[in-house]
């Protein structure tokens, strides 16, 4: 049994010493009150914040099928270095994760490459091949280890089919995550519809492509009295609807990504394919509304929508480049800006990245109580670093933040008491 003593870390604003034995937390005491027992590894965490390991509930790890973009090993490496103890991986692999055999092989690969974590929590497809026609065998997927159901990337367009997906998933206690996008309004769009798209001539996706489906999902969730989780929300109309739904008691939860809080479609003026993402970066009004929704709790969780692509795929005119931003390496630092600018508190930051994800998807959570799983990382809130390609552990270097200077960095990471970073 190995012991670990984290000395003088900042936990929710207080200087503490944390004693870990084996895989669990033994005690958290004010700094200096206790000393490390013998045979204990002591880590000086002076000036560093201690966070429970975060969850990224929306990633694309590309394996099986697109290992040239990312694989489970590199994806989990990015997770570990990014501060994530668990990631929920979407089903748009090849083959699609619509059968227990695919789920099992993904879990096996994660166990082989990162046996101590970060942990992979697969998300099963809602429909076979993500085609929106035939329900996936969700009971089998749940048994194999899927923790949620989603047709992310290929949203279920038909309302009746989506209803069936919600009802069938509920049979097995699974929450359905919907990528809200009306397939007709979003067809052949490459950025947000607005002054920028109309200035540069690119066909834009209107915000209603998202918000209409948000409204549909909310109304269905209320009618069926079932939960629905809304993926990567990006615009004002959507958060207004979600706020309204929550006030009515609808079982709706929602996520957003760092880029919707920081960037707008202005960045697309130079046809930057690194900033091409779906849903697209929206207007300044939308960005401010997203920040407000994070602040007031309308948005429940942060996610990255980590969508790595190979360089050669993004090196095209904008119409030919795929959507997606590689996000896990930078997300914690990028969202830390929201604490720095006063949008949210540090406690809310923990809620958005750890507590609410654990609650929504029924995942284990370290609350630093005695016996809790020793999943935590040390974060230097002041370190400034450059997000170079070499600083990224993901294979996908496709991010509009590449070569920017970020503030705040993960310095060390333990999962189940074992150091992974």
């Amino acid at each position, binding site marked *: 049994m190995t012991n670990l003593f984290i000395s003088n870390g900042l936990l929710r604003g207080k200087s503490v010493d944390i004693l870990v034995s084996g895989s669990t937390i033994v005690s958290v005491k004010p700094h200096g009150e206790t000393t490390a027992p013998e045979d204990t590894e002591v880590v000086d965490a002076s000036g560093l914040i201690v966070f429970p390991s975060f969850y990224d509930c929306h990633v694309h790890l590309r394996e099986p099928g697109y290992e040239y973009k990312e694989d489970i090993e590199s994806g989990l490496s990015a997770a570990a270095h990014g501060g994530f103890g668990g990631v929920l991986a979407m089903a748009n692999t090849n083959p699609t994760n619509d059968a227990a055999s695919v789920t099992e092989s993904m879990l096996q690969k994660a166990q082989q490459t990162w046996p101590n974590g970060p942990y992979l929590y697969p998300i099963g497809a809602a429909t076979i091949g993500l085609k929106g026609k035939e329900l996936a065998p969700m009971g089998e997927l749940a048994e194999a280890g899927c923790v949620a159901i989603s047709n992310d990337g290929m949203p279920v367009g038909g309302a*009746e089919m989506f209803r069936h997906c919600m009802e069938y998933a509920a049979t097995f206690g699974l929450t359905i995550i919907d990528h809200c996008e009306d397939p007709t309004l979003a067809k052949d769009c490459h950025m947000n519809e607005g002054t920028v798209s109309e200035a540069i001539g690119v066909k834009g996706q209107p915000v209603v492509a998202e918000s209409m489906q948000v409204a549909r999902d909310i109304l269905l969730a209320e009618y069926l009295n079932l939960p629905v989780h809304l993926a990567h929300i990006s615009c004002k109309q959507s958060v207004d609807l979600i706020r309204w739904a929550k006030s009515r008691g609808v079982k709706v939860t929602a996520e957003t990504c760092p880029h919707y809080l920081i960037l707008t479609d202005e960045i697309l003026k130079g046809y930057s394919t690194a900033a091409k993402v779906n849903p697209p970066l929206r207007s300044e009004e939308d960005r401010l509304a997203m920040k407000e929704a994070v602040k007031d709790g309308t948005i429940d969780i942060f996610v990255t929508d980590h969508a790595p692509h190979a360089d050669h795929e993004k090196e095209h005119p904008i119409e030919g480049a795929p959507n997606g931003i590689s996000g896990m390496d930078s997300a914690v630092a990028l969202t830390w800006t929201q604490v720095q600018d006063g949008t949210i508190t540090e406690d809310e930051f923990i809620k958005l990245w750890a507590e609410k994800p654990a609650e929504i998807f029924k995942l284990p959570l370290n609350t630093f109580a005695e016996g809790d799983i020793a999943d935590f990382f040390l974060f230097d809130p002041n370190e400034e670093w450059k997000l170079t390609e070499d600083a990224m552990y993901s294979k996908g270097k496709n991010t509009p933040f590449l070569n920017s200077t970020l503030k705040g960095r993960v310095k060390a990471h333990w999962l189940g008491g074992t150091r992974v970073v």
Partner: protein
Amino acid sequence: MSQEKHFIWPHKDLLDVSQLSLEEVSHLLDTAEQFHEINQRPVKKVPTLKGKSVVLFFAEPSTRTKTSFDVAGKRLSADTFSLSSSSSSLTKGESLKDTALTLEAMNPDVIVLRHKANGASQFIAERLDCAVVNAGDGCHAHPTQAILDNFTLRRAWNNEYAGRTLLILGDVRHSRVARSNINLLTRQGVKVRLCAPRTLLPHTVHNWPVEIYHDLTKAVEGVDAVMCLRLQLERQQAGLLPELSEYARMFCLTGNHMEMAKEGAKILHPGPMNRGLEIASDLADCNESRVLNQVSAGVATRMAILYLHATRKDKGA
């Protein structure tokens, strides 16, 4: 049959079990017991309904129910006439109303109707003077099935319903069998559980006097009987279910499940069965299976139903 002389059946038609008081159900089942005895005799025919005519109007495919009514009528010496959708003028574009009026003009005593339209039996019952027996209308009701199931359960349970627990397993959303059974059994004091994927349960099922399960291993715990429903294969094409192998994995009743039920718990199925899909093949044939008893119960109870409806006028009703 002496006791019937004092009991005038108060209903012109049998549209659903909801119209029957428990006393009437009990009387009907007692009558069926007497016919059941006749069915065990070497000569299985009595002259009770001699000279009466029964029209079997089945506008939806049916073998079991139609044959059951046919046998029931003939055992009582009634003349039975069959009309199916393919042979009837319905295929020539005649409305249900006109077909029914045409039939009535031939003065039958009872019309037995199976129709895909909900409320079809009520529709013609309101327009005709003869007795109408609903042999299944859409997803609405199947009273004669509920009565034969009740006859089967009454025998298995020694006429004691109260405190018993019955699990109905399968596609309740589209099942007229389930609706009629739930109505009758809950009134008799039976605790009814339903188990199905949520896509195969009615939207407002939480308002029904039943307990809902999605996990079959929990649903069968301690039950006195399980009634499996037939899964219509088109439910999958309609997007309500994934591949059928998952349905079989999650919702097929097996011997392992029955070990969780009460000892001696009975298994019912209205037929025709999809062996290996909603019921394991060996269970269908096991000692506790009442599937074939349901078939013979069907003849006896339908004899009682035809008798009570065809003779009520003769008794001064």
